Structure formats: C-alpha cells, structure tokens
C-alpha cells in the first residue's frame, strides 16, 4: 500500500532528524566539558551523517543515521596557567565544539523535520480522502 509506505518513509526521516538533534544537543551541552583527569582529552565533538538504505519491504530508499564519529579538528586552547588541567605551557584544552556551527546544524535539522511532517500530513490527508469515498 503506497500511502502507508509514504507514511513510513516520512517517519524514518523524522527519526533520523531527531537522532541528529540528539547528537547536536550532546555537543552543545558539552561545549565546555574539560577532561576529568589532569592530562586527559576534553569532550570531542561528534559528527553524524545520513545514509540512505534500500528497504525491500517498503520498496523505497529510507534514511538512517550513521553512527557518530569523533571530529578530529584541534581542541580550543585557553591560557590559564593556574588551572590544574593546564599543560606545561599553561594552556587548557577545551572541546572543539563551535556553538555557531551547532546552531546552524540544529536549524537545518528542524527544517528537515518540519518538511517530513509536511510530507506525512500530505500522505495522511490523501489516505483520509480515499477512505472518505466510502462515505454516503
């Protein structure tokens, strides 16, 4: 049934976008997380991406989130010689999270989520209209 598969496809999209949102929230929440130990690494930003896989049952390409991978860019350095986590030169390593980038990603995820809702609403109203042919 085509409408149900359309609903399923949109649901997959929404699930992937909300998973992406979760990762973004994790990054933002940890924007200032330093390492718990004296010479460990601070929080490393996680990157996610979408991938489309063919679902035989739905006969369509559904979207899925790939496992997050750590961002390999340099950590931010802050000069703070009094800090116990500072290295010999007096710098403390802070997470490589850029709040601006995360906000932009978040907007993108929101917009895509809304688009999926629109597509779902469309399929739903078409389905309801078909069932309405039975009335009268």
């Amino acid at each position, binding site marked *: 049934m*085509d409408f149900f598969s359309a609903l399923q496809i949109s649901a997959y*999209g929404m699930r992937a976008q909300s998973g992406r949102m979760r990762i973004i929230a994790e990054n933002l929440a940890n924007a200032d997380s330093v390492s718990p130990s004296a010479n460990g690494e601070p929080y490393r930003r996680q990157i996610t991406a979408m991938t489309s896989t063919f679902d035989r049952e739905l006969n*369509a390409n559904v*979207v899925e989130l790939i496992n997050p991978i750590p961002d390999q860019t340099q950590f931010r350095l802050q000069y703070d010689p009094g800090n116990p986590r500072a290295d010999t030169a007096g710098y403390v390593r802070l997470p490589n999270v850029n709040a601006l980038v995360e906000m932009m990603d978040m907007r993108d*995820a929101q917009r895509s989520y809304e688009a999926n809702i*629109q597509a779902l609403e469309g399929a739903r109203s*078409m389905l309801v209209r078909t069932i*309405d*042919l039975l009335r009268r």
Partner: protein
Amino acid sequence: MDIQQIPLFSLLSSRMSWLSARQSVLAENVSNADTPNYIARDLKPLDFAGILRDQEFALKPRVTNVSHIALRSGFLPQEAEGEGGNPSGVVSIEQEMIKLSDTQVHYQTATNLYQKAVAMFRTALGTRSS
C-alpha cells in the same frame, strides 16, 4: 460488469495510483534531503493517451503460470529534472513542497471526480441521493 471497465473509473484509478506512488517518491526525497550523494527522483508524468490506447487494445502479458514473474506493476521513478534554478538531482525542500502540494490538489480533484461519477450513477439508477 466490472466498474473498472468503465473508462472514467479506470482512468481515475490509474491517476490516483500514480499520484499515490508519486507521493511516496516525494516523501523519499524529503526524508533523504540531508543524505550525501542522494539523487532526487520523480515519476514520469502520467501518459493519458497511452492509458487510453492500452484500453482499446488490451494486449498485455499475463501471468498464467506460478513460475512466471509478473511485470512489476507501478511506476518507476527516475532522476528528477532541475527546476527553478536547481540543478537536476539535487533535493530542494522548497521544490519538493511545491510538488507535494501539487500532488495533493490533483488527488483531491481525482477523488471529487470519482464521487461525482458515482453520484451520476445514483441519479441514473433513480435512487435519491442526498
């Protein structure tokens, strides 16, 4: 007599199944809007003349044996053409929204026509329809 043998109804039902298949393809495009290397797809416009021709000369392959493979019923999506300044194959959410609402409107038209046709039959049968 099968209701599907009435040309109007068979036309409407193929139109409606085309529209619902298109809805699925568009939903796929929207949900894959953020997938790298994904290519936006769309269905070929429905060929009414072709359907009418098929009805006149109903010469179609049939499954007469269980080991036969049925012709895949339905519509094959192909790479979408670029519109509104977008290169072909790139998912533009705006473009997809326009296509979605277009599909909605056409579907509504088809269902309304269907209802009207049924009402006409009722009138012809002499039953009073409110």
